[in-house]
């Protein structure tokens, strides 16, 4: 294969550009991190709430939350981003639509975060529901028998145990969110994968560009795994049985 490997490409800059390709990668990494962190934190909160509500005895609420989960979990992320970016502004009143389209700063970041949050929160709600259901049934009754209100039962008895159960799969979901954020390039967010494609388009150094992106994704993933591992260990209660 007659490929002209050129690893120093990252120190070069595109024609007519002042910043180097390396700068593009750093820029892309920042957008990837921003999208992932914001979407995951929001998804954690929303998914935690929806997942918890699905285990309550309030039938209409359970039904609504199930609907929420099924809708956002079953529609491909790509389609959700597309709808959020292109279709949503046409459905809302014209003035709101115009605001979304013209005045909102970083429109693709906004749409990407919304779509990624909805998608991830639906998956996390499933995770939380399973986690809460894994707590021994007797504890629910015991909590109520002690005179705890339902909110107290959840906050002081069920959730603290459930969070420990769901922590390992939560790490996987965090990593999935990181990788899913690359779908946002279809709505014009210049995140890491988009920047790698951009470098490849300008210089045709395709392999170098995507190798760099791969390495960055792996490094971030390992960091996430490391940090989550630490949190997981710090949450462990000595002597607790599962």
């Amino acid at each position, binding site marked *: *294969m*007659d*490929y*002209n490997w*050129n690893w120093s490409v990252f120190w070069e800059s*595109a*024609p*007519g*550009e002042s910043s180097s390709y390396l700068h593009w990668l750093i820029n892309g990494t920042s957008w990837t991190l921003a999208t992932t962190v914001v979407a995951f934190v929001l998804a954690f909160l929303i998914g935690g709430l929806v997942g918890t509500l699905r285990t309550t005895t309030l039938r209409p609420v359970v039904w609504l939350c199930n609907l929420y989960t099924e809708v956002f979990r079953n529609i491909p992320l790509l389609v959700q981003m597309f709808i959020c970016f*292109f279709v949503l*502004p*046409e459905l809302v009143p014209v003035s709101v639509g*115009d605001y979304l*389209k*013209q005045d909102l700063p970083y*429109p*693709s970041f906004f749409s990407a975060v919304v779509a990624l949050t909805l998608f991830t929160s639906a998956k996390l709600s499933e995770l939380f529901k399973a986690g809460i259901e894994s707590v021994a049934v007797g504890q629910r009754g015991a909590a109520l028998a002690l005179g705890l209100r339902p909110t107290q039962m959840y906050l002081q008895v069920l959730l603290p145990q459930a969070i420990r159960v769901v922590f390992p799969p939560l790490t996987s979901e965090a990593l999935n969110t990181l990788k899913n954020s690359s779908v946002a*390039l*279809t*709505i*014009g*967010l*210049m995140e890491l994968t*988009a920047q790698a*494609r*951009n470098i*490849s*388009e*300008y*210089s*045709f*150094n*395709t*392999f170098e560009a995507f190798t760099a992106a791969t390495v960055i994704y792996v490094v971030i993933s390992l960091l996430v795994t490391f940090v989550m591992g630490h949190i997981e260990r710090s949450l462990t209660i000595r002597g607790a049985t599962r």
Partner: protein
Amino acid sequence: MFDHKKKLLALVIAAGLCATVQADDLTGTLKKIKESGTVTLGYRDASLPFSYLNDAQQPIGYSIELCQKIVDQIKVKVGEPNLKTEYVSVVAATRTPLLINGTIDLECGVTTNTVERQKQIGFLLTSYVASAKYAVKKAAGINNVDDLKGKAVVVITGGSGEWITKNLNREKQLGLKILNAKDGGEAFLMLETGRAVAYINDDVQLMATIAQSRNPDAYTLLSEPMSAEPYAIGIRKNDPQFKTFADDVLRNLYSTGVIETQYPKWFQQPIPPKNAVINLPMSDALKEAIAHPNDTGV
């Protein structure tokens, strides 16, 4: 029985010898084509009118037709009238790797020959010259690039329109809001839905998109040409035999006037799938590239 085997063996050896003798004269891509009995063309699925799929899912277009003419001559050159032609779909990101690793032999799409790209792949003679322009909605009342001041402009990520717009923004202090789109389809959607007031791309691609759109009359191009983009068919680098051979085929099409009959078919007459007309007469820049064939990049 025994005799048969001997005869067969002799035949196999003879055939093998014949093949090696002929293949010895050939190097690089031509040798590969001769040995595999197939030539593989890379096509784009929606780059009207250069390289796209028709309603029968067959790749067609101006670039595809040029490549097919080259294939016709390859058949003569390698002495394989039954050479198989295979088509492989490529996108912007995969066209270079697939060419370099030998999956495709000719990249028949819409690729601008740039000096930067020449470090990785080779280009045949310029076969089309486009120029980047801004498409706007007629109703927006924008007549030149200065009217874009403070407005949102959509560019295709990695396309030349991106740095043209960035430079324009710097030089004229326009304060543009530059939006990125993954490809032409999404960029046009941003113009159509009002996320951007202008969309920059090569004039011919804009006109093709507009001609296929729901309301072609609603759009117009600003007259200022922002660049010259020589399109060329991509081949592997460092393959002088194939480069000379394929260039000669093109040169022959240019000098015999075949190109002049082929051009209107794609740019001035109704084309599949919607039978829309792009209506773009041959530009002076292309006439020049045909009169004086060259492979100069930008």
